């Protein structure tokens, strides 16, 4: 079973349906209890500060599962909260699983970035099996992750500056784009996640 963390910030149909389509067995979890979850997805809705407020009660069980090796995938804001802090909500602490910060998109580009942008792949990762450089994914965001350790960045996209599109550190994964809204290529990433979770 793949747990989808429901922290009450919006509808989770898209990610639920996409995981089903990808061959997974998703369950929406309103309570911080991940018993039986072989993988966990943190979806992305809302602002960094409000997300962290709602997510705080999930932190301890999430960290326990991460320590046990359960793959965790954060999407959009769900990836940003894995960092330490964000310019969007000064003072709010992220989970800090991946050292680094979240900063606003640069001046001179339209904010939010909304639309299909292409990936540049920095290194191999099972999550990106079947994904080729130049494949396009659907982004909607005003802030982006800047990990302190650049090796955490697996793929980037260009929007004014180079932006971390996929990050990974051991069993912690994040995508700045929405795989559940990125057509067949997005589903391919979720299929990879479903397969990784089963191994």
């Amino acid at each position: 079973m793949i747990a989808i963390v429901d922290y009450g910030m919006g509808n989770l149909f898209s990610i639920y349906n996409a995981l089903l389509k990808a061959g997974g067995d998703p369950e929406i979890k309103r309570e911080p209890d991940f018993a039986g979850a072989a993988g966990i997805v943190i979806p992305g809705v809302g602002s960094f500060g409000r997300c962290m407020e709602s997510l705080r009660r999930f932190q301890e069980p999430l960290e326990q599962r991460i320590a046990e090796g359960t793959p965790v995938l954060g999407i959009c804001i769900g990836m940003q909260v894995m960092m330490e802090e964000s310019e969007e909500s000064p003072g709010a602490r992220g989970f800090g699983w991946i050292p680094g910060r979240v900063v606003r998109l640069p001046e001179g580009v339209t904010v939010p970035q909304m639309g299909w942008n292409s990936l540049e792949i920095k290194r191999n990762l099972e999550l990106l099996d079947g994904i080729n450089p130049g494949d396009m994914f659907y982004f909607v965001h005003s802030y982006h992750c800047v990990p302190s350790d650049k090796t955490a960045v697996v793929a980037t996209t260009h929007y004014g500056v180079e932006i971390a599109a996929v990050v990974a550190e051991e069993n912690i994964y994040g995508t700045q784009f929405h795989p559940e809204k990125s057509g067949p290529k997005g589903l391919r990433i979720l299929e990879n996640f479903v397969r990784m979770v089963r191994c």
Partner: protein
Amino acid sequence: MLARRIIPCLDCDLGVPDGRVVKGIEFKQIRYAGVPWELATRYYEDGADEIVFLDITASHERRATMFDVIKKTSEHVFVPLTVGGGISSLEDARNAFNAGADKVTVNTAALRRPELIREISESYGSQAVVVAIDAKRRYQDLDGRITINTESGRCWFECSCYGGRRFTGVDALAWARRVEELGAGEILLTSMDRDGTYDGFDIELTSAVSGMVRIPVIASGGCASPEHMYEVFRRTGASAALAASIFHFNQWSIRDCKRYLHERGINVRITD
């Protein structure tokens, strides 16, 4: 760099179970194109970058049918879904998002009460608010209007609402600027002069609006071929091209349109 998007638009009559997609020229000669969620799925598989549903019936009792359409569609379609037609309050917008919509479009209600744009934008983010502007050329009463020089003379553009059945006196170019300030994330710009004509997009209108605002502009009205899409992308700053009939009746597939654009150097998302 962001890809230019191709967006099929489904005008939905929700007076029957599951709804039906309709296409008529100025509400005459109505033809039925199919069941909304089935057609949306076909377009998704064919490479649509986004799907727009417009509820042309837009009555309260039929709103629930639209939410069923969205729910059903989101089981099969994994690109953004936009819903419009009769969204007149924050609550209508919330219901659409709860049903699985990623964006809503507002037109008439925003002209009547512009603050609605800000309310939805503040609650759901600017990317979730698309303001539809239905613009008609006017060659008279130019004083005090934002005008442009066109091949047919100097003109301004008047906003219409209720699906083109009523004109408002509102200056569409001034309104475009205003909606950006109010927090709109995108403008769905329909030329009422070209809509249903198959003569191609209004390049002069699209160029004027996309040059005035920083938010993405979706060109709409008059598209009958990939050449029309190429023309609007080459000559204007439009981020997306919207079309309906050319896809509904199998004149062109989305895949063929994208291949045509890609071969001519337009940055579009190509699917296998």
